[in-house]
């Protein structure tokens, strides 16, 4: 499976995602933000980082670049799209997933391993986990506090993908830290599955995110 990894000025998890995708058996390719046509790719990952220096709001400037129109076409064609950390913030800014990821409650950058519950296994990325399975993946963000005005709708449509278990480090609404669109093909998660893709990293719990996308 040919998977595009979107790069913006300030992306910094692109090579980690490349490696994790290779481990999962995909054929990853880097895509620069100015590319409009993504028809060559069967899936897209927006990796973490600090696109455009997080100026204005995290993800706000990346959200208006030409590659986003290419991603919107991918979504229309039913191709899976995953946004990780800054990628999740970008997908929320674009409006491809509901809500926002905004400043952490304690106003700090939080970098730590977290326990997470897989609330929904209907997305390609979570299809290899059991519903309500507890997994470990790290977070690293200053703007990850999830907020939405449509919590009930999210619940009704099974759009809550991941939530923090045992603690809520950034003050997210209902401890939510991963959401998807109504179809379940666009997924935005703050934790980093690529940083938990090999046991040598401390956990390989995240690898199934990429394996599920490829299968």
């Amino acid at each position, binding site marked *: 499976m040919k998977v595009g990894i979107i790069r913006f000025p300030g992306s910094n998890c692109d090579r980690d995602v490349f490696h994790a995708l290779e481990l999962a058996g995909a054929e990853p390719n880097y895509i620069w933000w100015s590319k409009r046509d993504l028809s060559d790719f069967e899936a897209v990952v927006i990796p973490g980082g600090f696109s455009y220096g997080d100026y*204005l*709001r995290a993800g*706000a*400037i990346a959200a*208006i670049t030409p590659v986003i129109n290419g991603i919107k076409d991918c979504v229309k064609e039913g191709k899976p799209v995953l946004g990780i950390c800054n990628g999740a913030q970008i997908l929320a*800014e674009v409006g491809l997933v509901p*809500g*926002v990821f*905004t*400043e*952490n*409650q*304690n*106003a700090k950058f939080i970098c730590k391993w977290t326990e997470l519950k897989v609330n929904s296994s209907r997305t390609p990325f979570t299809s290899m986990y059991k519903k309500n399975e507890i997994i470990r993946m790290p977070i690293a963000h200053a703007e990850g*506090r999830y*907020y*939405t*005005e449509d919590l009930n709708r999210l619940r009704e449509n099974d759009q809550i993908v991941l939530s923090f278990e045992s603690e809520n480090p950034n*003050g997210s609404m209902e401890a939510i830290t991963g959401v998807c669109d109504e179809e379940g093909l666009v997924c935005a998660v703050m934790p980093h599955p690529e940083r938990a893709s090999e046991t040598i990293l401390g956990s390989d719990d995240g690898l199934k995110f990429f394996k599920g996308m490829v299968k």
Partner: protein
Amino acid sequence: MKYDAEVKISLKKGMLNPEAATIQRALALLDYQVENTSTVDVIKFSIEGQDTGLVKEEVDEMCQRLLCNPVIHDYQIKISPKEE
């Protein structure tokens, strides 16, 4: 004609503002007891346009498309003829 535009962006009422909370705690460290601290972002630029109304419409569009996130922000726009 040239206009000065000013956009004031604030969090919607009731939204948690960690930056303001931190500032308020810091002021308390200096023994200033203040309440209801909030922060506002201001973006200013000059812009060419036919009249104030049209310029305001254009700036409003900028707010919707980029400058603000309507889920969490309120904004105010001020347009005035450019001071030479």
